[in-house]
């Protein structure tokens, strides 16, 4: 079979056994791979209302069909399940090399269920699967762990692993691949930790076929030249995501001191220019020509990143403009296995509660000494970390100020305040995993391009979000990276190799819409309703007093009106439930 290996590796941690099942090719046709295929398997493997901490909650690892070829950016994998952080779909991506190597080992999908009696590592080399007691790896930080796994298992292995944060089941513990690649959001690391699974290491020597390989190479060479190595995409190599600091700060939507402002006085100390001065090298993910990974060195700290989200949430949002401290903090989060978006939110909230005199956590905006202790404290749940580990929603509620916790559906918000980019309000409210900028990104047109106004919210924004979400839902089946601004025409060129026929934009859009609706059904099945499609009130009603977006108010009534329009455009009823007609049209074979 071309592109697919036809195999699903099922791992049962409770019995420490593994078996191979054939890939469901009907689903592969309907959902392609990545996000779509993960969701279809997730639906099938879970009962409504399943406790996300139960052994039955599957950890599904799904690359796309192009992983293990030389289609740029497609080494990505999605880690799925039911989120232990908030009970929505867990749908978290990382680059690196795991997707490609898993394919070389012979698998399209990895499904892990059950819970081991003791901390365990799984070694997969082609058709051999070994379960290894992992007591010696307990508490190990990412770099040391990966070096140990290479020494103990295979020098050419790659791995998905958790740090101490995952072992302690922190709600926003992430999973690491190749040290710097994190499936960050939604508690992937907590899910692995709940299975007593420290690491999955994989080495593969097999082959991914594509049909006529030389014809394929010729076409990919053309696509690389014409559509990847272009100015549209190459900013990620030349600049990388720190370039967004000046963009969001200029537009008044950079989270600053727990979202009290959209502009940060210290922005110029942590922007792209500042990072370029300490840049030491560039690296790429497996099978990627773009090479967006920036390594920096300052004093004793060298490593990749930080990326924009970390700069925004663990920099401006906590009042830190010290580039050295920010580098150290980012490094500690990588080592302990923490999602930096949630970390920066929770920390900003605790600083806000302290400075407002609500509760003294001993944390203050810009206080570097306490700041640098936080990653370890959160991961190990020691000191102030024990309480902060409950997350923004619970922490803000506990101290009687739910309005200060910047989250949607329990997932802490990324680095784009909707007050400077109104379309983001609908993007966050309707995202399938809570506050997320990777499902729809109106800020791209509202601020970066300026082709839509940033300070209006109307039906055109509802429509933009629907279109973008469908596009990305399909793109994440591929799985193409966010950093390749790939359109349907280009995806069609690659889909033509996969399906051996012309694939239309309408077909691809429909797959995206199918995937989006299946995710919606899952969240509805797990108890989410329209009442949860809301965003923090301050974003809707409380204008900033400084920065480019000062005085701008979205308004709750306007937001609700556009949410209605969004549902209508989606073919959902007024409660946000997909209609029978819509599900039939999309060929979705499951029902609530």
């Amino acid at each position, binding site marked *: 079979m071309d592109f697919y290996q036809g195999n699903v590796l099922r791992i049962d941690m409770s019995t420490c056994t593994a078996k191979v099942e054939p890939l469901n090719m009907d689903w592969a046709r309907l959902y392609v791979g990545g996000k779509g295929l993960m969701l279809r398997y997730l639906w099938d493997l879970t009962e409504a209302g399943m406790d996300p901490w139960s052994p039955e909650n599957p950890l599904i690892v799904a690359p796309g069909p192009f992983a*293990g*070829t*030389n289609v740029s950016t497609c080494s990505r994998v999605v880690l799925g399940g039911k989120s232990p952080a908030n009970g929505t779909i867990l749908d978290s991506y990382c680059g*690196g*090399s795991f997707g*490609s190597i898993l394919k*070389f080992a012979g698998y399209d999908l990895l499904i892990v269920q059950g819970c081991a009696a003791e901390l365990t590592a799984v070694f997969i080399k082609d058709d051999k699967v070994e379960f290894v007691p992992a007591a010696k790896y307990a508490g190990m930080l*990412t*770099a040391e762990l*990966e*070096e140990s796994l290479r020494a103990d298992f295979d020098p050419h292995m*790659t791995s998905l692993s958790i740090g101490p944060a995952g072992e302690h089941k922190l709600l926003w513990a992430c999973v690491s691949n*190749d*040290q*710097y690649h994190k499936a960050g959001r939604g508690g992937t690391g907590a899910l692995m930790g709940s299975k007593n699974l420290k690491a999955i290491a994989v080495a*593969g*020597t*097999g*082959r*991914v*076929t*594509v049909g006529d*390989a*030389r014809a*394929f*190479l010729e076409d*990919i*060479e053309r696509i*690389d*030249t014409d559509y990847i*190595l272009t100015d549209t995409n*190459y900013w990620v*190599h030349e600049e990388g995501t720190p370039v967004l600091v000046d963009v969001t700060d200029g537009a008044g939507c950079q989270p600053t001191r727990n979202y009290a402002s959209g502009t940060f006085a210290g922005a110029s100390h942590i922007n792209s220019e500042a990072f370029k001065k300490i840049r030491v*090298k*560039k*690296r*790429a*993910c*497996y*099978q*990627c*020509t773009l*090479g967006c*990974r920036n*390594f920096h060195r300052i004093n004793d700290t060298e490593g*990749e990143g930080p990326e924009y989200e970390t700069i925004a949430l663990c920099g401006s949002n906590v009042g830190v403009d010290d580039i050295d401290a920010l580098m150290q903090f980012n490094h500690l989060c990588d080592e302990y296995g923490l999602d930096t978006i949630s970390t920066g939110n929770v920390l900003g909230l605790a600083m806000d509660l302290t400075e407002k005199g609500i509760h003294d956590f001993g944390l203050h905006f810009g206080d570097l000494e306490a700041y640098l202790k936080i990653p370890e404290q959160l991961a190990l749940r020691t000191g102030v970390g024990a309480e902060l580990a409950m997350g923004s929603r619970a922490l803000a509620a506990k101290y009687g100020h739910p309005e200060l916790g910047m989250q949607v559906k329990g997932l802490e918000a990324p680095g784009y305040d909707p007050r400077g980019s109104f379309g983001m309000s609908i993007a966050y409210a309707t995202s399938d995993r809570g506050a997320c900028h990777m499902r729809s990104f109106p800020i791209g047109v509202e601020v970066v391009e300026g082709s839509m106004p940033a300070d209006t919210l109307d039906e055109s924004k509802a429509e933009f979000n629907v279109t973008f979400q469908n596009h990305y839902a399909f793109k994440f089946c591929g799985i193409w990276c966010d950093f390749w601004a790939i359109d349907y025409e280009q995806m069609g060129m690659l889909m033509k190799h996969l399906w051996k026929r012309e694939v239309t934009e309408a077909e691809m859009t429909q797959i995206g819409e199918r995937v989006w609706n299946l995710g919606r059904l899952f969240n509805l099945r797990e108890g989410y309703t329209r009442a949860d499609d809301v965003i923090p009130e301050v974003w809707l009603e409380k204008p900033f007093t400084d920065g480019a977006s000062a005085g701008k108010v979205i308004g709750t009534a306007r937001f609700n009106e556009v949410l209605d329009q969004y549902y209508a455009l989606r073919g959902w009823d007024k409660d946000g439930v997909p209609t029978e007609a819509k599900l039939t049209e999309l060929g979705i074979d499951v029902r609530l």
Partner: protein
Amino acid sequence: MPHVMISSKKCTGCHMCELGCSAWHEGGFQPSRARLFADVNPTTAVIKGHSCLQTGCAKCQEACPNDAIVTRQITVTPAGTFAGKEKVGESVTGVVLVVDEEKCTNCGDCYDVCPYGVIHEHPERKVAYKCDLCDGDPQCIAFCQNQYVLAVDLKIDKADRALTVDA
């Protein structure tokens, strides 16, 4: 004589060279069978390139008891660009070391002496296999980040010009 080299300094560790190489030669993407490789430590981000220097090294040829490593004339015209293009033009003509599969007995002497670990037993054909510069269109160069990075580049070794061509 023309050969490819991976610059450890410029390489970003994307492995595209191995992917292009294996697909061109093996009919599918299989980096374990690539004829060159970048040894990347993802944790430290340290990279070491391994590729055949052809006649500039020739240890395999010297070690072969059956004269199965032979020189073949080749004109290399890399896709995109390469560092010496302005000096030497679009193409470079020279010789490349290839395995004469009729003569190769898979004795393994060459595997042991190769300083770069880029000549191996082919798992199915049971003979040695190595870099042959893809009949003049090296896929490693074609799929490197090319004009931006030039990590995998075509090199020409002056010292080898005296060598004769047998095939």
